[in-house]
């Protein structure tokens, strides 16, 4: 059974310096509040993993928490580029950022392999692109029946996966609906997991399209209403698109970024 914890306690216990951390979400349910707590607790040398690193990863990178990024598409979704990410790659600010770059299909299958207890996954992918030249863990494998050559990628096994979800019950069973992305796989692939939820309820009323993560497969659940802001939580909140647009300007400049971080994250009270 998952433990019910506060966000601060959950991050303190489950996210450690040097960890491989996946904070997943496909535009929907981005665990912003948990990311801010990681910044407040000054984690360092994290390897961040995510298919679509977006604004929260830009913030973690700019705050100096991250030494390495494993990803397939890094941008401000629907807006443009990530300036803190660019500054780290192009100018090593505030610290150098090493990249391990894949395609979405590759990353998704790497999580699937991790969740499945397999050391690798097979797909039709990457062939003819320049990605394998720069990402050594993209290899080939031959079908033992047809002889056909396919692509192999290694399993992802994050030390900890952090996701946001709609709700959980008191036994820590987690319910997610809407675009559920790769969250189930990311949680099951990880050694530990922390799920922030909009609310804890007595009983999870079934919802069409739901994914339920049983409490015995989750390490800890923290109630964090609004924990996905400025992204959205289907059924609870809508995307704060003004913030995504504003982020472009805030993040272009190191000073305006630092001011924003000090004001809105570092000096903010810990939630929950």
């Amino acid at each position, binding site marked *: 059974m998952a433990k019910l914890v506060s966000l601060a306690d959950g991050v303190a216990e489950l996210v450690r310096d040097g960890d491989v951390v996946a904070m997943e979400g496909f535009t929907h349910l981005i665990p912003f509040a948990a990311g801010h707590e990681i910044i407040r607790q000054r984690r360092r040398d994290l390897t961040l993993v995510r*298919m679509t690193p977006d604004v929260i990863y830009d913030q973690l990178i700019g705050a100096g928490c991250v030494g390495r990024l494993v990803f397939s598409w890094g941008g401000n979704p629907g807006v443009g580029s990530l300036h803190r990410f660019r500054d780290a790659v192009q100018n090593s600010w505030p610290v150098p950022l090493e990249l391990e770059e894949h*395609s979405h299909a590759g990353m998704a299958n790497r999580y699937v392999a991790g969740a499945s207890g397999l050391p690798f996954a097979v797909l039709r992918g990457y062939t003819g692109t320049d990605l394998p030249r720069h990402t050594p863990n993209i290899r080939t494998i031959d079908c033992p029946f047809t002889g056909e050559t396919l692509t192999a990628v290694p399993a992802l096994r994050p030390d900890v996966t952090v996701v946001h979800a709609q709700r959980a019950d008191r036994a820590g069973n987690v319910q997610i609906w809407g675009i559920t992305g790769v969250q189930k796989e990311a949680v099951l692939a990880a050694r530990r997991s922390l799920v922030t939820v909009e609310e804890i309820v007595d009983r999870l009323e079934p919802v069409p399209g739901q994914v339920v993560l049983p409490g015995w497969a989750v390490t800890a659940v923290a109630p964090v209403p609004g924990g996905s802001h400025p992204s959205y939580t289907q059924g609870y909140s809508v995307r704060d698109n003004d913030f995504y647009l504003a982020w472009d300007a805030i993040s272009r400049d190191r000073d305006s970024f630092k001011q924003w971080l000090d004001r809105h994250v570092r000096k903010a009270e810990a939630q929950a």
Partner: protein
Amino acid sequence: MTDYTADEMMTVAAARQLRDDTACFVGIGLPSTAANLARATHAPNLVLVYESGCLGAKPDRLPLSIGDGILADTADAVVSVPEVFNYWLQPGRIDVGFLGAAQLDRYGNINTTVVGGDYTDPRVRLPGAGGAPEIAASCGEVVVIVRQSLRTFVERVDFVTSVGYGSGPGDRARLGLRGGGPRTVITDLGVLEADPRTCELTLTRLHPGGTVEQARAATGWPLAVSDDLSTGEPPTDDELAVLRALEATKKAVR
């Protein structure tokens, strides 16, 4: 006839490229706008597939991103991200992959990764691959929508993020890519199609008012021009009205 911008002409031309009753894997940005325009005009049964896992999305406004809740709310089915790639894209179930590009070369190879410098120390770091490599590999055909300029239409892409025809005829087969590749590129100046023999992108249509010289001047390689070069139709009043109404929905959410 209403006045229109070059971007509007490009979007309308791209939308016209999509046939009804086909399935289209939609990239974000210009492809999503054009695909939604097609569905709202001549292709009401166009199946929009988004890599967020939404199959058959029918949004009544432009999604803010490929993970917009309106896509899940209106989809025939919402599946996991691994499933959309493994069960739907990879086996070749999707007719058309609709992509953008930061750089494009004469064989339709696409770069959305890095520009200038080298990979570890680039001049410009772009978002990266996303779903594009496998969309470009596996869809029945690929349509690219991109503004034409010397910056985008380059002799050789700095990084092959998604393979078009590689270095020419036979390369896709040699690589084992099962989709048909980038048959069509829609720009703000006209339409290019891959020559079936040489695989080279060839200017086959100009938008009204455009010239071959403009197109050549915006292309970083000696641009092939079709003997049957035609001039496309301008946007109809209906196309423009629907497109502008769609764009307005995006601003309204903002």
